[in-house]
């Protein structure tokens, strides 16, 4: 999918896998791949700060656990019981299997289900 040197340590770089935005993050020796758009307002996560196992959205500083994709901030302080509409903003990011091989980064993304075209089929 990409050359390994395109994602430096502490870096978060956005790629397109098919039509799917995927952010690849390197934290020390570990690589992570997550859905590339923040759940808050759908902004790209490229360039977000990487620190202590978390990726921070560069736009509004929402924080996600790199390993699980779960929103850490502000989910822990959002009043979801009384404002359930906020759940959409703190949805977890999908994570993908990722590996580095022969100088390249490979991300496992399941191809989307084929949709029938409206015309002719």
């Amino acid at each position, binding site marked *: 999918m990409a050359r390994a040197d395109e994602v430096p340590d502490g870096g978060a770089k956005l790629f397109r896998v098919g039509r799917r935005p995927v952010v690849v993050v390197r934290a020390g020796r570990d690589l992570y791949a997550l859905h590339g758009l923040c759940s808050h307002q759908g902004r790209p996560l490229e360039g977000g700060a990487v620190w202590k196992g978390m990726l921070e959205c560069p736009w*509004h500083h929402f924080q996600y656990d790199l390993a699980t994709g779960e929103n850490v901030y*502000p989910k*822990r302080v959002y*009043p979801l019981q009384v*404002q359930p509409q906020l759940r959409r903003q703190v949805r977890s990011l999908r994570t993908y299997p990722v590996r580095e091989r022969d100088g390249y980064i490979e991300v496992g993304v399941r191809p989307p289900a084929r949709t029938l075209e409206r015309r002719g089929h």
Partner: protein
Amino acid sequence: MARVAREMVEKAGINVDELLDKLVRAASAEFTTYYYYTLLRVNAIGLDGEGLKEIIEDARLEDRNHFEALVPRIYELGGAIPRDIREFSDMAACADAYLPADPKDVNQLLNVLVEAERCAIRVYSEICNMTFGKDHRTYELSAAILHEEIEHEAWFSEFLGEGPSGHFRRGAPGESPYVSRFLVVPSGRHA
């Protein structure tokens, strides 16, 4: 706009439009925080809430001062805040500090407050890192705001029992000991 002032920042190697985006988002976060802290303050009631109310007010008015101090710098650099307040509030650099599910639970109030301050610290640390040694005016302003946000975090963190902050609260609400010198409109405090 201060044309040469902007040019000097560009010449130092800063992408001024990127900096302006960060400053406008920071200003938005301060403005929305002022609103949300009003809610938090009025809901800090009862025996536990009464002491908390005072430091919420200190932080609330200082965050409003931060907005006031940022706006002229935005315009000096050739930027602007949006015409539409809804567009402006959606840009806030931090999550909204919503009233918690149980406002009578002081710990819930404190967690909202401390997380808001922590986000602000990250925002201004980023701006300081970007401007250090290159945009001296923005750096000084951001560092001054950062000083106050760090104190706010320390106050709320102390109330949560996370350890001493080493601080004592302000002499008067909205004192802004670090940011007041940047305020275009005097805060009304006597020297």
